[in-house]
């Protein structure tokens, strides 16, 4: 595992409040109170942040004293985590961004509590979300019959599909690039593979009529720009028609058979697995069918884009020399054991994890305990469906006591393997698929 910046280590909410309650208010919620009454919230964004963490609105917020731990969070001595989430490392509390340690991604199907959170903007207020009245509009210049659907309409009119789909942030692994790329310094945990239930995006688009000149779709969500400016979109991305019309592209209302977690897009989101997570819009309100490449916020270079040709580290690249990222690259994680474990020399060690390859399938996974000098092939399962990750398992035998690193390397069906070192540098630090490694002390 890579080293975390010192200020991203999880800290208990009690620890923060015990040190300095006013500072804890600021750190966690950017909260400042009325200077006279010492109550309330001067900034609306702070109230929204606290409301998001406790999972509901705070009707008497103006009377809430400063420096008070919300009781909903005070029951726990666990490190500060987000509503419905456990064990995540918070990289940034405003906007909320949090990643999952590798060993907490060991489940075949990622539980909601272990799914990372990546927000470009401010999520819609919890109390503004009503799944009963939520509407999705399908429109755009290349839509023949623009229509609006409630979630009940979608459920009634279209066939339901449940698929296990990979969602990985394009910037996962950014922390390893040098010179460093700006943004949230993700290590390996901006990845999840839960199941999603919904309707095919294709079925809904076809019901609204796709004109012959359609080339792209774009989404709009109910989240707001981090600056609070109502005229700015936090993010509005999309995919080419070919990806939009795939069997696995869903408009989903459920994750792991339950409501999608609030921070992951409840009550409705797009899921186009295998591409940067940012194409899978959350709090989905509108989809436009476009006669040109979608030009919403964060579609243009350098967002979610890499240089069209490889470049030397540290190069300044003009926007016209970038291309938009499509499929994510081949990658794998060691999810068991947890890095830092001790192991007895007399026993073989089971090692396992997941491997995935964006639009492609993974062909092989190899494991090394000698820094890549020799490799042994792991057992690899087929994915439960296309665009789901694949489970790999193997047993390793340590020849003598000492310090070992277990490295895993996946190879996709077209022969691309993960690099041992950090791959080609790019200005925004995307697509780091360097092999994951864990440390084991054998005695």
């Amino acid at each position, binding site marked *: 595992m890579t080293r975390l910046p010192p*200020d991203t280590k999880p800290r208990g909410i009690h620890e923060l409040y015990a040190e300095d309650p006013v*500072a804890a208010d600021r750190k966690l919620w*950017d909260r400042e109170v009325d200077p006279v009454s010492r109550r309330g919230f001067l900034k609306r964004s702070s109230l929204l942040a606290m409301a998001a963490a406790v999972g509901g609105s705070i009707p008497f917020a103006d009377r809430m004293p400063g420096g008070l731990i919300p009781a909903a969070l005070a029951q726990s001595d666990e490190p500060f985590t987000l509503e419905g989430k456990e064990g995540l490392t918070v990289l940034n509390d*405003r906007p909320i961004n949090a990643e999952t340690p590798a060993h907490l991604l060991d489940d075949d199907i990622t539980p909601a509590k272990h799914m990372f959170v990546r927000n470009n903007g401010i999520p819609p207020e919890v109390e503004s979300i009503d799944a009963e009245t939520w509407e999705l509009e399908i429109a755009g210049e290349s839509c023949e019959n623009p229509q609006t659907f409630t979630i009940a309409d979608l459920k009634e009119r279209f066939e339901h599909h449940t698929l296990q789909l990979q969602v990985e942030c394009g910037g996962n692994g950014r922390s390893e690039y040098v010179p460093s790329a700006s943004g*949230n310094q993700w290590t390996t945990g901006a990845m999840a593979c839960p199941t999603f239930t919904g309707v095919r995006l294709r079925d809904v688009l076809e019901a609204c009529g796709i004109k012959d000149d359609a080339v792209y779709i774009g989404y709009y969500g109910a989240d707001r720009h*981090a*600056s609070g400016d109502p005229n700015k979109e936090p993010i509005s991305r999309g995919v080419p028609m070919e990806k939009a019309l795939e069997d696995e592209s869903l408009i989903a209302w459920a994750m792991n058979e339950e409501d999608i977690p609030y921070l992951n897009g409840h009550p409705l989101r797009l899921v186009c697995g295998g591409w940067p997570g940012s194409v899978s819009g959350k709090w989905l309100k509108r989809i436009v069918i476009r006669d040109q490449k979608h030009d919403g916020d964060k579609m243009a270079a350098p967002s979610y884009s890499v240089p069209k040709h490889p470049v*030397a580290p*540290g190069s300044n690249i003009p926007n016209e020399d970038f291309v938009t990222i499509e499929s994510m690259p081949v990658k794998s994680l060691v999810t068991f054991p947890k890095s830092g474990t001790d192991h007895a020399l007399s026993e073989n060690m089971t090692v396992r994890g997941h491997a995935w390859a964006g639009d492609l399938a993974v062909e092989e996974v190899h494991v090394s305990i000698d820094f890549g000098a020799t490799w042994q092939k792991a057992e690899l399962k087929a994915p439960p469906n296309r665009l789901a990750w694949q489970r790999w398992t193997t047993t390793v035998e340590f020849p003598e006591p000492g310090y070992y690193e277990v490295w895993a390397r996946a190879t996709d069906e077209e022969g691309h393997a993960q690099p041992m070192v950090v791959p080609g540098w790019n200005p925004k630090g995307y697509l780091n698929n360097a092999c994951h490694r864990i440390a084991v002390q054998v005695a």
Partner: protein
Amino acid sequence: MKSLNSFTMPTLVVALLCLPLGAGAQETDPGTGLVQAEGWETVRNNCTACHSASLVIQNSGTRNHWENLIRWMQDTQGLWEFQAETEETILDYLAEYYGPKEDTRRPALPRTLMPDNPYPTVADSG
């Protein structure tokens, strides 16, 4: 690490004063996590309206890198314009305490072994 105050011998003080500013013990503000050094309050006041200080602290780069980031935020993200003096303070602070990182699995080849780059680099202008 020991703080500067714990040393009283004149020779040690002189020796320590010769160290780069960023090399000494650094107190951080418990509220934001920012290193408490000249300019930190200016950074807090100007850089945490849209995002928390965590986004600053986890990043690193040359003065030029930070300046480019500020221009991008001003051009596209609604960040206000700074007075020249304020901007100097912010850039001095960020370049000093959140300067370029070098630790990596495998560093880039030394500049002397690099071919001519068709693009300018951060190092050239930073």
